[in-house]
């Protein structure tokens, strides 16, 4: 029976404690969308028309993810070859339908139609490629397509969940059949494709030696050098060689595929493997040209965490005109941009302040860029000179950056893409160079934000820069609004910001930027809302006269947006309960509440006969307005247990991701306790004294939970045993007022009190 009681008590206590702030590790409301990874002003697309390495090298961060682009490129290249072979008669989609979306039966029917000079099967009746194949009786081609379909199950990965090997018992039979078909045709376009199917079959059957033998046997029988299939075949050859343990040869061959076959780049990058320095040296020795060696360095530079500037130095040394250099340059700049851009003023935890190592990397790249430009060995210096300017800007040499940009402007004239990029770079430099904000700059920045489409990161950059400068010139209100809004100010109201904003709002004329900040960040009726916040801030400090003065300046419509009933006090706390269905309850706005508190305080001091009752009412109001009462919203715009949790050392000033000053919680229960104690002391009525003692005891219990030494956790499976120093009022209630009706009611309704009594 006792156990049952204890369980009930535990449940009640746990329920109660849901409303007590808890110490946990995770904040709620955090979203990845709020994360900031640095501004990006470098257009990664600058090189896309100049080299086909850009998509791979510049998307290095996506490496190891889906290679859908690679697969798509491979398929398109193959389709283009088929289209060329069929004299451009069919579209790529029509060819794709036959080659990739058909099945063996469809193709058999197509072959029959071609052999008998009939029209293509019904589903392809209007397909130009099918029509071409039947009209020209291309049975050899269709035979190849049928053969490719036969090989397909052995070549493509089946269900990932299957444990079956791709090795089929008929693989060799299929290989031999393919060889015989290959030899039957004089069409080298088809021979090459037969060879590809055959070598791939052996490779995927894990017979690497056999695959290489087939490669060597069949290669001399094919005379088709311009097809992309040659590179696919070389990839298989390299894969088999790697499986047989020769990393050096395999990696060399992979590098050739990397250079020549865009669709295979991702696959090759993953397969490229050098174990040690000796293997790397041997691999370099295998290369037949400096550009091949440069490709090896480019491959090594393409890793997610590679320090590409080192590889660029090697490449520039051996092959200064290498097409790998510029994509690698852009890649390095994008990494440095993430680290350095706006590091002094940007808001957000990522990517952190640049350290000495990052600075060295920046200087190293800038040195290389200057060297490259000075030696003038590049065919196209446009991007490099802009890069020099941007790197100078990132290294905070604004003067040099400006000069270089001016020089770049004359060189890039006519290149629309580069001109747009330079315009953005120059704008960023200009904004960064501001040391003070005046009205002209404010209006200019407002116009820039409103009209410029240069970069999605630009407005954040501008506001971060403005915020830093506003703070420097002590325009705290405007500084705050550059990055935050009213809600974030409500989380932890700061007087210097509120007063500054009120002063700004009361100006007769606002410029565009000021108007934008106030209307967008504070909202309509911004002056009233700021006074409402100011009044609330005073109320949290119990500065009632100041609070009244501020609230009196608030428009009634704003004042009445939120109403409360702090004079209502049930025995059991209920923080988020609906409004009680009690017609005697009067809902009041904050101004009315302050006025009533002032009146109660006056009466408590002057009407001695009833002062105990007034003090008790004051206790109720302060209890209800605290974190623990149902009218916490009078003081607190955002009540959160996780705010408590994040910073247990600072009892009422908690860090909060969204707000620069944290989310303040109003947990001080001392004033409520003081008034309940006063009420208990002054009353002559035992019932009233019992009630006041009970509420004072609840305040004491809260103080116990707030005690840093308290080890009680909300999930502890028992009710807390109060230490002696927190038992004063419960003991008074028990020892002096146990005969009262309220006492009985409290025992009945308050399970914790009942449990306490039993203990």
């Amino acid at each position, binding site marked *: 029976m006792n156990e049952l009681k204890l369980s009930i008590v535990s449940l009640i206590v746990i329920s109660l404690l849901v409303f007590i702030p808890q110490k946990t590790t995770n904040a709620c409301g955090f979203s990845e969308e709020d994360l900031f990874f640095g501004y990006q002003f470098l257009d990664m697309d600058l090189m896309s028309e100049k080299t086909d390495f850009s998509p791979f090298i510049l998307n290095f961060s996506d490496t190891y993810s889906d290679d859908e682009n690679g697969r798509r490129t491979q398929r398109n290249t193959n389709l283009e070859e088929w289209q060329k072979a069929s004299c451009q008669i069919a579209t790529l989609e029509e060819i794709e339908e036959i080659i990739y979306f058909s099945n063996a039966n469809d193709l058999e029917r197509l072959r029959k139609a071609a052999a008998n000079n009939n029209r293509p099967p019904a589903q392809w009746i209007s397909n130009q490629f099918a029509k071409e194949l039947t009209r020209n009786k291309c049975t050899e081609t269709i035979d190849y397509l049928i053969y490719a379909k036969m090989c397909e199950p052995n070549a493509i990965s089946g269900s990932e969940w299957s444990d079956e090997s791709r090795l089929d018992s008929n693989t060799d039979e299929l290989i031999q059949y393919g060889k015989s078909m290959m030899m039957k045709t004089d069409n080298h376009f088809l021979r090459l494709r037969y060879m590809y199917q055959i070598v791939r079959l052996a490779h995927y059957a894990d017979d690497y030696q056999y695959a290489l033998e087939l490669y060597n046997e069949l290669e001399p029988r094919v005379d088709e050098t311009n097809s992309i299939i040659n590179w696919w075949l070389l990839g298989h050859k390299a894969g088999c060689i790697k499986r047989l343990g020769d990393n050096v040869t395999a990696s060399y061959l992979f590098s050739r595929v990397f250079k020549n076959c865009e669709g295979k780049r991702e696959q090759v990058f993953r397969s490229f493997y050098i174990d040690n320095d000796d293997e790397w040296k041997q691999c370099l020795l295998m290369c037949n040209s400096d550009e091949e060696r440069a490709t090896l360095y480019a491959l090594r530079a393409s890793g997610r965490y590679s320090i590409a500037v*080192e590889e660029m130095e090697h490449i520039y040394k051996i092959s200064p005109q290498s097409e790998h250099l510029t994509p690698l340059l852009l890649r390095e700049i994008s990494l440095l941009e993430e680290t350095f851009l706006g590091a002094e003023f940007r808001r957000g935890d990522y990517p952190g302040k640049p350290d000495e190592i990052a600075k060295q990397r920046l200087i190293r790249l800038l040195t290389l860029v200057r060297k490259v430009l000075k030696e003038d060995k590049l065919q196209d210096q446009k991007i490099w000179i802009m890069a020099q300017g941007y790197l100078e800007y990132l290294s905070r040499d604004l003067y040099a950056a400006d000069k270089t940009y001016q020089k770049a402007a004359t060189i890039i004239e006519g290149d629309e893409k580069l001109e747009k990029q330079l315009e953005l770079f120059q704008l960023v430099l200009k904004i960064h160079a501001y040391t003070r904000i005046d009205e002209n700059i404010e209006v200019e920045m407002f116009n820039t934000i409103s009209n410029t489409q240069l970069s999605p990161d630009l407005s954040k950059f501008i506001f971060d820069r403005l915020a830093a400068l506003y703070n420097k010139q002590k325009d705290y209100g405007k500084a705050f609004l550059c990055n935050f809004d009213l809600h974030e100010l409500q989380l932890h109201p700061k007087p210097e910001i509120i007063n500054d904003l009120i002063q700004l709002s009361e100006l007769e004329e606002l410029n565009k930027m000021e108007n934008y900040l106030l209307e967008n960040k504070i909202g309509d009726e911004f002056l009233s809302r700021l006074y409402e916040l100011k009044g609330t801030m005073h109320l949290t400090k119990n500065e009632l006269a100041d609070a009244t003065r501020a609230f009196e300046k608030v428009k009634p419509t704003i004042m009445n947006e939120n109403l409360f009933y702090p004079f209502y006090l049930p025995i059991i706390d209920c923080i988020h309960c609906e409004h009680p269905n009690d017609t005697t309850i009067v809902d009041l706005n904050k101004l009315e509440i302050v006025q009533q508190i002032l009146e109660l305080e006056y009466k408590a001091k002057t009407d001695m006969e009833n002062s105990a009752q007034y003090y008790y009412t004051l206790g109720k109001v302060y209890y209800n307005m605290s974190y623990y009462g149902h009218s916490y919203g009078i003081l607190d715009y955002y009540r959160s247990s996780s705010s408590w949790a994040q910073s247990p050392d600072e009892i009422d000033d908690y860090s909060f991701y969204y707000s620069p000053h944290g989310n303040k919680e109003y947990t001080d229960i001392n004033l409520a306790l003081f008034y309940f104690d006063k009420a208990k002391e002054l009353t002559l009525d035992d019932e009233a004294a019992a009630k006041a003692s009970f509420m004072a005891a609840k305040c004491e219990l809260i103080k116990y939970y707030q005690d840093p030494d308290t080890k009680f956790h909300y999930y502890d499976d028992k009710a807390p045993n109060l230490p002696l120093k927190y038992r004063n009022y419960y003991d008074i209630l028990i020892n002096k007022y146990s005969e009262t009706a309220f006492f009985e009611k409290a025992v009945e309704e308050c399970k914790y009190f009942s449990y306490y009594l039993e203990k």
Partner: protein
Amino acid sequence: MIRAYLKMKNKIVIIIFSCFLLIGLFSCKLSNSSVPEVSFYHWKSYFDLDSTEIKYLELLKVDKLYIRYFDIDFQNNKIIPIGKIQNIKNFIYQNEIIPCIFITNNTFKNIQLEEIDSLCDNIIKLIQSKHSSIGKQGIKTLQIDCDWTLSTKDVYFQFLQKLKEKSGWDISVTIRLHQISYKEKTGVPPANHFVLMCYNTGDLNNPNEENSILNINDLKQYKKGMSDYPHQLSIALPLFSWAVVLRERKVIKLIRNIDINNFKNNSNFEVQGNKIIVKNSTYLKGYYLYKGDILRCEKISIETLLQTAQFLQKHIHTCEIIYYHLDIYNIKNYPYERIETINRQFNCD
């Protein structure tokens, strides 16, 4: 006369009882039954158990091997098995094998509720296929390793429940230390067996971390959760080492089985305490290191393991120790006699 007989009878009963008690106590000591069962994880993608490893298992009287069969991840918009163990068909092991699967939390972040059924079916099918390919019939237990979080708890637990129902197997789950500390939030999975992973206690990504594998002081923070966990816990202890590669203060790579002594006379490196500084860019085990990279060598000493065991035995009553993981390199660093000493710290009575 009768009274004397009764007295005599009582004495005989007491003597016999005492004898049984002594025999019982003595026999307990002789059979060494208080030492928990010892098992190992095999956590590689290629199965290759050589004679040294087999001998090591025999010496430690290991009757059970936990083998990772595959991982599961959400990739390219589908849930797929990755890193399926290779060469398992050539494997002969007479004792019990517990198949293990590592499932990424990302899988449960992306799974649709209606996909749970098919995921269970696929797992069961693939596990059975792998298991029967090594000539093992019948699976008693399947272990699921997943670092679930609050956001994935519900769906992960539903998955476990469904897997248990569909397979009819016992489900064993791994529990991270933070999951026992905040069990009211992270919950207790609906499983039959629970393995507490007593490693990876530190912050791997913190450049100032000295040893992220196991720090006894970090472990102590979790002692409350250990003693009041609602199920018996098996304990997984680390037997591995690695070098954490730091580039520009970011952790970019783990290189396993690095012996710091091998770097002392190499001009490309400079050894400073447990760190190796890369002085010239160079390859190491297939990974290209740049000048300035730092390798933080992390290894668990026998002494640390001993202290850990002494601490754990005070707070967890366990009957199984599982070492992570079986590897020829680790065997050299952790002689079986020393491992036996660790095992003896625990008491399964």
